[in-house]
């Protein structure tokens, strides 16, 4: 079980690098979507005594993060007629290097943290830290609203991974509440992206510079 789990997390960590290195927005969105599917499968792998709610949370994660949100973003991209991230603040090669270093650092840091015995051999903590770091690089380093949303979602994915450490102790009610909030949040973001596109006729956040001191 541990190996399947580590394999899935390893795939998610690889997808981080795909998202960082790609200049085509659809591939960033697809990397994020695949990561969502992988993460949705994880609770089903981790939990031994199969619980109805665990399956539900997993299914919801897969459908929302893997399909609903990516489709929303892809549609926004089509209407705005954008394909590529041009002139990011942090270039693609530097962000890829940053991501690689971040992944190594995540493994090193996780090694230092005092973990419970059952979590020592797993990639849960390194995977979580690497995804959070990737999310931040995308949030800061990209200028298209879509890329920033993807960064935010990858950051959320990392936190979700970390949350799996607690899956046995936290009541699933709280977990599903959290998932619901995240879902609504992304819908709100999607709507705002749409409005920005209409108001500014662009999804370039560099145009959002009227408000400054």
């Amino acid at each position, binding site marked *: 079980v541990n190996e399947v789990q580590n394999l899935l997390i390893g795939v998610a960590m690889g997808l981080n690098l795909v998202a960082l290195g790609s200049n085509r927005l659809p591939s960033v969105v697809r990397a994020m979507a695949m990561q969502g599917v992988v993460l949705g499968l994880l609770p089903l792998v981790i939990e031994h005594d199969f619980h109805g709610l665990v399956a539900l949370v997993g299914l919801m994660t897969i459908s929302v993060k893997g399909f609903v949100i990516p489709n929303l973003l892809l549609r926004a991209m089509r209407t705005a007629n954008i394909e590529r991230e041009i002139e990011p603040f942090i270039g693609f090669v530097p962000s890829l290097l940053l991501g690689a270093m971040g992944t190594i650092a995540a493994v090193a840091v996780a090694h230092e943290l005092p973990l419970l015995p059952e979590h020592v051999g797993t990639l849960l903590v390194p995977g979580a830290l690497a995804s959070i770091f990737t999310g931040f690089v995308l949030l800061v380093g990209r200028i298209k609203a879509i890329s920033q949303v993807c960064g935010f979602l990858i950051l959320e994915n990392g936190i979700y991974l970390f949350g799996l450490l*607690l899956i046995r102790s936290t009541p699933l009610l709280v977990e599903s*509440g959290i998932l619901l909030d995240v879902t609504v949040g992304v819908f709100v973001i999607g709507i705002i992206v749409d409005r920005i596109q209409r108001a500014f006729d662009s999804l370039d956040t560099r145009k959002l510079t009227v408000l400054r001191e």
Partner: protein
Amino acid sequence: MKDILLVVLPLLGAAVALAWPGERSRPWLLPVFAGLHTLLVVWMLVEPPAVAPTDWFGFDPIARAVLPAVSILFLACAVYAVTYLRVRPERPNRVFVALLLAILGLLSAGHQARHLGFLWITTEAVTLATVPLLHFNNTPRAFEATWKYLLIGGTGIALSLLGSFCLGYASMRGGGSGDLTFAALAAQGTALSRPWVLIAWVLLLVGYGTKMGLAPMHTWKPDAYGEAPGIVGAILAGGVTTVAFTAILRVRAVVAAAGAGAVADRTLLAIGLFSMLVAAMLLLATKDFKRMLAYSSVEHMGILVIGASFGAAGTWAALFHVWSNSLTKGSLFLSAGNIRRAAGGRTSADVSGMSAVTPVSAAMFVAGMFAVTACPPFGPFFSELRVLRAGFDTGHGAAGAIFLVSLLFAFFGLTRLVFAIVNGRPRVASAAGAGATGERRVRETLGVILPPMVLLALSLWLGLATPGVLREAWTGAAGQLSPAP
């Protein structure tokens, strides 16, 4: 039962508002439900219900010490909203009214949350519910502000979730059963894994600090307060920030129980002083009187966390300051909204002489400015004095000095801008300057004057004669948050 009613009642109001057919009569739902909420909460303030220590939700001493202030502020804003929405008939108000009521319900839930996860869910829900309110004006500037609010606020909220998980892991590592109520976490005490507690503290402070608008996570605040309608600004500054502050207080109590209270207090003091200094500098520079209110809010959030770092007496003073800040800031936001509508502009370059155009609002704006800069005999003077005294009593002389210097600079900044707006020859911005040209003059009706005036009067009352029941409520909350050793 009553504690649940505090949440359900406004949410019910939100549902009614969504279904209500009449566009003109719908805003009246706001004062009706807000009034019921205030009545209920004041009743509970006077006769507090019993809360079992293991409950994950309830009207405990902390909720009792803070939630009534939020409710009163909301009621004033709700009354104001009736007139405000009447002068803005071009904007549909269905979503606006429903979400305002939903926010009241969620804020009530957040203040009463005694569970780490539940607290996070309510705070996140409040954040999301405010988003459509921010771009009520539907201008490109409003969208820009909303986008920044979403990204910065969303990241902050994400970090506080990560922090919550870390605190949960600290409990698991310490042999906890996974009970994430604050009482259960604090009961574990030093058994909580210290490294994880410290990581959790940093993340939660940054996360909820973003929501409060502490520097350097305050950057969304001027944009959001500047672009949103005055009522939304008032509710953000007096209600939403308060729920984040109580979150920090509750987490601090757990961290202190885990034996890291000294570290927590040092970080709170540092971030508070930094916020005050940054806010004072920005107040000296800004020319926009709505953004000015945002910077002033950053300053007062700094005062709150500084108070929280000064032990039980300081926490008491901080809770006092929650009240005086909420009421005074509410009055300022609402009178600023009146001035802004009449002037059509927001900077000292466009606007002056408002004492001739909107005499009552301008007078309230000046009085509110003196109140918020801690001039006696308004509430903030007394609460800040108590924060300062708690600081000197706990041996934080240098911090007290920085505190006073920041207050002085903030005073210079605020007076400079407020008098530039109020004094001089009446001059309003061209486009919407209907106020001066006379044909569609923005009148100061009772509906937009009374709410800020009442809030200001309450702030004065709070300073001159702090009610005994409030003192008792703050003592109870301070006792729960920092139990005497």
